[in-house]
Structure formats: structure tokens, C-alpha cells
């Protein structure tokens, strides 16, 4: 090719860029692949050295993560009788019987309630605050916005002790409401700032047109601004959910019996004989699913949202 263009990358540049992207994707995805792989191994395959890349897959890890098991003697096994279900048979190979459900399902549900609950609260409060900051004359607006952002200027865990004491005296320790409140408080500043950026981009004329067309301010906000802000709301929701979903330190500190989320629970999964790595991996794999589904559902909005502010409509 003899033509030369400064905007069109050359073939070599494209090739180089492609290699970089693939390399980066590999580095990112490798730990995930390893965890998912481990979740389908037997405990002995999981700790084999050198590590096994090829193995006979089993769902034992998944059965183990949802159950507790007991080792019985031959006579006791005789007394229990033949295993009835496929998962009974699976554990019986190792001379075990299922003695009950584990707390994983419960912890997972806690994660869903707390993660999605705080995300919804963040979006509702964040959108309302962002709209007010974007459209109305708020006294000391700039100072307030700075103040809101300043809550993110140190790691949240730095205030763990005051929060721990506060939660204890307010009776919020180890409650769903407490964790939802905490994650909302941490995420709200991000949510307000992101959403304000998105709402600023929506021309105010749309609302004015709706006001003149006979709608109230709230109807104009609800029917005209919100659909326009869908992109921003979707990407903000993903950021909020990912933070709340993955949060570990506060969850360890503030929850135990009742409102414990999955992150502090998963590493405590212990098998009958030693650490049950496939079960841990299975728990981690399952834990990934909700965020992935949520992100894929909102992907259409997310791709547009990531370039927020860059393109005028």
C-alpha cells in the first residue's frame, strides 16, 4: 500500500494492538479459568503437583459447597442403606453421607439482598441528588460536591473502628439493613458524581418542553430525564453492585451469624479432611454469576456509558 493516512493505523500497528489486547485478555482471564477448572476437580487433583491441566471433571465441589458431610463407619453405612440420589452416590464413594445443607445458600442470598439492595438505594438517592445538583440552584453547590467526593479520599476501612462501635450501639451489627446502609454510604458519592455528569449532558430543554406540555416537574423528571439517563444509571449501577458484591473487609468485621455475605464465608469452607479447594472454587465460581449476568444484561448501556461525556448527541 502506497497511500498514507494519519488516522488509519498501518497493518503492523493493528497487528501489534491485537497481540496486546489478546495478551491482556489472557492475563485477566487466566485466574478465572483456573478457578472454574478447580471447581470441577477432585480434591486430590486440585492439590496435585505438578498442577493438572487435564483431568476428569466432577461436580463434587458443587455438591460439597452446598452440603455438610459426615464420615461413617462400615456398619453405620450399612444401617443408612443404599444412596438414593446422584449426589448421595457421589459422596458415598469416599465413604461419606450428606448430613445437611451448608450455609452457603443462605450466605449467597445475603449477598444478593445486601448487594442489590444497596445498589438500588444508591441509584435512587444518587439520581435524585444528581438531578438536584445538575438542575437547581443549590447553595454552596461546589463545596457540597467536593464534600461528597471527599468521603472517598481515604479507604473506607480506615473508619472501620468508629463504624464498628456505631453499629454496635445502634444495633446494626450483623443486620441486612446495616450492611445495606454501609455500602450505600460508601458508594453514594461515586453514584452522585457519575450520575451528575450524565444528567448534565441531557439538555434542559427536554424537561422544559415537558413542563410546557402540561407535565409537573416530577413527571418531567420521571418520563423524560430518566429514560435519557438510562445509560448512566446502568453503568453506575454496575459499579455500585461490583463494589458491594465484592466487599470483604467490612463483611468480615461486621457480620457473623445472621447477615454474613458470601465473600467472608467462602474461604471458611472446610471439607471433612482438610481444606476442600474444589468446594471453595465452586463457591467462588457461583459467586461470579450474578454480577456477570447483571453486567451482560446491562452491557448495551454500559458500552455507551463508559465513554460518558465524550460524545454529544
Amino acid at each position, binding site marked *: 500500500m502506497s497511500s498514507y493516512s494519519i488516522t488509519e493505523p498501518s497493518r503492523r500497528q493493528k497487528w501489534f494492538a491485537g497481540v496486546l489486547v489478546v495478551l491482556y485478555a489472557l492475563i485477566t482471564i487466566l485466574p478465572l479459568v483456573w478457578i472454574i477448572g478447580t471447581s470441577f476437580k477432585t480434591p486430590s487433583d486440585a492439590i496435585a503437583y505438578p498442577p493438572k491441566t487435564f483431568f476428569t471433571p466432577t461436580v463434587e465441589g458443587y455438591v460439597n459447597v452446598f452440603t455438610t458431610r459426615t464420615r461413617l463407619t462400615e456398619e453405620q453405612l450399612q444401617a443408612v442403606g443404599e444412596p438414593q440420589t446422584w449426589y448421595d452416590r457421589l459422596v458415598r464413594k469416599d465413604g461419606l453421607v450428606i448430613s445437611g445443607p451448608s450455609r452457603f445458600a443462605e450466605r449467597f442470598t445475603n449477598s444478593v439482598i445486601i448487594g442489590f439492595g444497596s445498589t438500588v438505594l444508591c441509584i435512587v438517592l444518587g439520581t435524585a441528588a444528581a438531578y438536584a445538583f445538575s438542575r437547581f440552584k443549590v447553595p454552596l453547590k461546589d463545596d457540597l460536591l467536593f464534600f461528597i467526593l471527599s468521603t472517598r479520599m481515604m479507604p473506607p476501612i480506615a473508619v472501620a473502628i468508629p463504624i464498628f462501635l456505631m453499629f454496635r450501639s445502634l444495633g446494626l451489627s450483623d443486620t441486612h439493613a446495616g450492611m445495606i446502609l454501609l455500602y450505600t454510604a460508601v458508594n453514594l458519592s461515586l453514584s452522585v458524581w457519575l450520575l451528575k455528569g450524565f444528567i448534565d449532558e441531557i439538555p434542559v430543554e427536554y424537561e*422544559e418542553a415537558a413542563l410546557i406540555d*402540561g407535565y409537573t416537574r416530577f413527571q418531567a423528571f420521571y418520563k423524560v430525564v430518566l429514560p435519557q439517563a438510562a445509560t448512566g444509571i446502568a453503568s453506575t449501577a454496575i459499579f455500585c453492585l461490583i463494589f458491594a458484591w465484592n466487599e470483604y473487609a467490612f463483611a468480615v468485621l461486621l457480620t457473623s451469624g445472621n447477615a454474613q455475605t458470601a465473600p467472608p464465608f467462602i474461604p471458611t469452607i472446610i471439607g471433612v479432611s482438610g481444606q476442600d479447594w474444589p468446594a471453595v472454587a465452586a463457591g467462588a465460581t457461583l459467586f461470579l454469576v450474578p454480577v456477570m449476568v447483571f453486567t451482560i444484561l446491562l452491557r448495551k448501556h454500559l458500552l455507551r456509558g463508559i465513554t460518558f461525556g465524550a460524545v454529544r448527541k
Partner: protein
Amino acid sequence: MAQIRIQNVRKEFGAFTAVRSSTFTIEDGEFFMLLGPSGCGKTTTLRMMAGLELPTSGEIFIDGEEVGMKPASKRDIAFVFQMFALYPHMNVRKNISYPLVSQGMKREEVKTRVQEVARILKIENILDRPVGGLSGGDRQRVALGRAIVRQPKAFFMDEPLGALDAEFREHMAEELRALHDRMGATTVYVTHDQLEAMQMGDKIVVMNHGVVEQFGKPQQIYDWPATKFVAQFIGSPSMNFLDFEGMIGIGGKSVDLGEAKIEVPAAREGRAGKLTLGVRPEHVRFATESAYRGRVTAVEYLGTTQIVTLRSSHGDLKARIPSDRPVREGELVGLAFDARTLSLFDAETGKALRSDANDGVLGHG
């Protein structure tokens, strides 16, 4: 349909005063132009009429009812925005029917009304299209459709042709005027384009720095500007100003510009000191016998006419003369002015002096 009255309306944004005590009346069925340079307060005035801004003080009457503090949704008016502000998440039909839906109108009736409006605007074929891909002209028509569909008391338009390209603007201006004549609704139209204002308006208010400079019919404003600002803002090329020291008494019919005695309409107020003689380029004639002379510095050929720029002892001026008169640069020519068309201004205040010719049309509202 309604009369709109603006009384002592004032708007301040913090320390900045956007509109200073405006007063004027828009008669029922008028096509009314709010004209002025950017930042003159015309859009703010319109937005106060529409209820998108609240006046700091003063009263606004629509159809005899004081609406100054009423929300926009309660005023029964329609607004066409410069950027059209079509709801981007709705198609054309939904955009047009949106104001009707808010009134809780029955679906069947909404449908007929939208169809009717689409027929008038010739947009029936795009009713089910999303608004995103429409051309500027079609967007404009949809915005108009959304305005006329509810048959409001008045239409407010904020530079609605500003976003269109020049070629199409002309066409759309005609369409707008025709639509107005057909509907007969009171229309208030904001523009900074003096040609657009004169072409379309029944009446014009010229504003500058938040003040109403003049109020009247387009021709009155063109012929008898109330201030030097209006004289300069309206007309292209704008009115010539010849500054001189002199005097005129009540009933005086001439002024002295150096050696030359220039006839003017009989004065109704006298003034002495710094004055300005205002003359439109088309009222300047070449006259060899005239004592007032100028030297040609430039010539612009415009087809049937030509614009000749001249240097006189009282400043530069432009003359619009037929192009069959050959003109050379550097030529010294005698200049005569059409006495019936001249305006005299007080050079200090910029206000026109009253004369037999302009009396009664220098209204400030």
C-alpha cells in the same frame, strides 16, 4: 387565542439585570417578533411569558389573567425550542401526542388530532419514525406539530429557524408565516435576525441591554428608528450617521452640516449641541449641484443596485444607488438626501428627536 400583556417586567440573575422594566402588549392573533442582539434579554422575556423563568417583579397577563407566578404547565401555551427538544426516546407520533396525553385525552381523539396536524404539516409519512434520524426540516415540523396539536392560547418560539441551514430557513419562514395565517394564533417569536423579523412579523419589539428600545410595525421601525441602536441594528447596510455640532428649534426644517444646509422633517422638539443626522443608504442621491460632498472610497456591485462607500467631512457613509450610474473610486460627488426620510438623534443619549414625520411611532411600548 389571546392577548398578552407585559407590564413593568423585570428579571435579575444575581447582580445581573437581564430585563429592565419592560412593558408592551401583544394583540390577539399577532405574529410578534422579539428582536435584539444576543444577551439583550429577548429570550429571558419569552421564557418569563412561558413560565420557564419567574419575573423578579412585574406582571404578565395572558388572556386577561395574571400568570406571572404560574407554572408553565398551567399557562396553556406552546413553546418551540431552538434545538427543537424533541423527546429522543419517542417516535414522531408519540412526540406530537405527548401534550395531549398529559391532558388525559381519549386515545381515539389523540389519534385524530395527531393525524390532522400531520396532514397540515405534511409529515404523515414519518409519523412512525424515531426522531433521531430526521432531517432538520422534519424535526422542525415535528416540533411545530407538538406545539399546534393542543391548540394553545399562544405559541412561543425561540429562534426556531436558527438551527436550520440558510437555504432551508427561507422556505421554513414562509411555511411558518402561512401556518400562522391559517391558525390565527398569537405567536411570539424571538430572533436576532432583523431580516427574519421584518419579513415575518406583524409587530416588532427591539431590545438591547434588557431595555425595550422600540415597539411598532416593521416599516415604522425601519423608517423611524427611536434610537441610534435601532437605526443601526435594522437594515443592511445600516443607517448612516453623520455627527455634527448644531442646533434645531421647534418647527425648524433644516440643519447645517458645515457649509451645507440640509432639509429635515419639521422638528417638534428643539436641541442644541452634539447631534447626529441619520440617513438610510437608499435615501442618498448623487447630485452634482449639492453643496454636501463626499469622495468615493469603495464600490460594491449587487446586481440592480450598488453600495457606494463615501468619505464626507462628517464621517463615512454608504449610498445605495442604481448600478447603471458609473462610479469610480476617488471620485468627488455631490450628495443629496431625501428630506422626508431623515432622522435626527441626540448624539449623547442616542434618542431620536421628535419631528412631524416620526411623531407617534417612537413608542417604547
